[in-house]
């Protein structure tokens, strides 16, 4: 092969690889642009704060927004302590043995379980076996289990990034193992744990399949009064008004998609900001 051929080949190859990247990233931009452009018309104060009216063709989506916030709060209350403690076990206590290998494999598999299978599990264990019924409690726990691997993985990375010397110094001053973790390790891992938690929240807020059979109400124009009530939720609401109910104005559909997308993307943006601040501040 002569030199000219090699140079042409080089150019074609980078152009092709660049083309691949454009194919991945460009649709993201287009999707965001379409939803923003078509959804913004529907957004007003009433849309965000009023009850749906006339079979959801009019009024707002307030119960769906509130329902999603309840579910997300419940999921985090459950998953955050459990996830952080699991990460502490794996990083600080577990020996490199068979058990810790199995735990890690279990976490990898939890991350890969299809969301609809979480829905089945939630239905089987929380709704039926524990008799919580189709309720906020059952839905929040199902979502909590689903985001558990996200929180564990992020917390593990955060804990592992704290230098070993911090622990050695604390232990050498007579602190116990738990005191060392509590006062010398956790504070430094906190931003990383926070980042993971926010990402988990974003995931929980957007998931539909796990809440299909555990909590979501089709149309419920009043607010829940206890954790055993059903609620509407944003992602399920978007599914319902775009596939199940004819005659919903297009702008309402796009408006709902825009609210859901904004909520999720704002959470992710927040996580990215926390992470980059943390990276800049890190002194070791």
């Amino acid at each position: 092969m002569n030199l000219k051929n090699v140079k042409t080949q080089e150019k074609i190859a980078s152009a092709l690889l660049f083309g691949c990247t454009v194919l991945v990233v460009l649709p993201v931009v287009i999707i965001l642009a379409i939803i923003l452009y078509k959804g913004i018309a529907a957004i007003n104060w009433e849309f965000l704060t009023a009850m749906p009216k006339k079979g959801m063709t009019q009024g707002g989506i307030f119960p769906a927004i509130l329902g999603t916030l309840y579910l997300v709060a419940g999921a985090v209350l459950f998953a955050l302590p459990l996830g952080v403690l699991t990460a502490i076990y794996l990083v600080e206590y577990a020996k490199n043995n068979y058990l810790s290998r199995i735990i890690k494999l279990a976490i990898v598999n939890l991350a890969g379980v299809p969301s609809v299978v979480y829905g089945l599990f939630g239905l089987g264990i929380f709704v039926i076996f524990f008799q919580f019924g189709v309720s906020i409690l059952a839905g929040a726990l199902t979502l909590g289990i689903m985001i558990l691997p996200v929180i564990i993985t992020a917390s593990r990375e955060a804990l592992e990034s704290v230098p070993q010397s911090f622990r050695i110094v604390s232990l050498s001053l007579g602190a116990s193992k738990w005191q060392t973790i509590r006062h010398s390790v956790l504070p430094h891992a906190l931003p990383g744990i926070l980042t993971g938690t926010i990402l988990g929240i974003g995931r929980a807020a957007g998931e539909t399949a796990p809440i299909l059979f555990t909590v979501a109400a089709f149309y419920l124009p009043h607010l829940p009064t206890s954790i055993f009530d059903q609620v509407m939720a944003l992602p399920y609401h978007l599914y319902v008004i775009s596939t199940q109910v004819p005659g919903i104005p297009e702008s309402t559909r796009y408006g709902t998609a825009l609210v859901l997308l904004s909520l999720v993307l704002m959470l992710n943006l927040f996580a990215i900001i926390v992470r980059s601040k943390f990276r800049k501040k890190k002194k070791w």
Partner: protein
Amino acid sequence: MKVQKRKIKEYLIEKTIFLSGITSIVIVVLIFIFLLKEGLTVFSSISPAQFLTGKNWYPISNPPQYGILPLIMGSVAVTLGAAILSIPVGIGSALYIAEIAPKKTREILKAGIELLAAIPSVVIGFIGMMTLGPLIKNIFHLSTGLTALSGSITLAFMAMPTIVSIAEDAITAVPKQYREAALSMGATRWQTTRRIVSHAARPGIIAALMLGIGRVIGETMAVMMVTGNAALIPHTILQPVRTLTATIAAEMGETVQGGSHYAALFAIGIVLFVITFAINGIADIYLHKNRHKA
């Protein structure tokens, strides 16, 4: 006294942490047990072989027929389509981001891909339904644009964040010396990328592809909204199909708790759980292979 109290406290904390540590195992086992508990009863009326290879999924006819072959074929069709579309494009962009893009561009592209991962699947399904469906309908002059092809394109897109980010990690983790050695021997950048770097990163790239495909098989909402939901064995990719996941999501609401249809849907859950468990397990082995090398 004080020391003893502290010791007790320390002991209790350690036990709590240990118990939390093993929760993940407990949850995986519980998921499996509950799927079996609710799903196995379907096999009192139908054998597992009939269930897996039966060609008719008519859950509400009398007597009901629970053959999931059309659903398996639906999942296979959209997954294959998605794999064909996403594998070359995904590896290509991972190579571009890791090897060619300048640092600033790389950060922007990675943020874009993270953004894509964050978009809820119901939103992607909604957009696919509103834009991709009509587009395919018009291009191929079909009665409906909600087909296996729309599903494949949507899913290929949704597999991208997984494929690109994990493959990119694997490529970046290839030691610098490999590249330097190749370049100093007179290889061009592209020759180095193609023959040296992509070979060294192979286990990680394979893991990335497997995890991407795992994500595709398990994806529910988007696929349910764009594939048209017909439980028939597809003959072309321009026909509506229904996947395993979409069947569960679409039909569970209509079933009677404890009935045979209900159990059949849980049995589909068992099939999905086993498939994704296998894929994730194998991908994990590949990922660790890569780490040992680097």
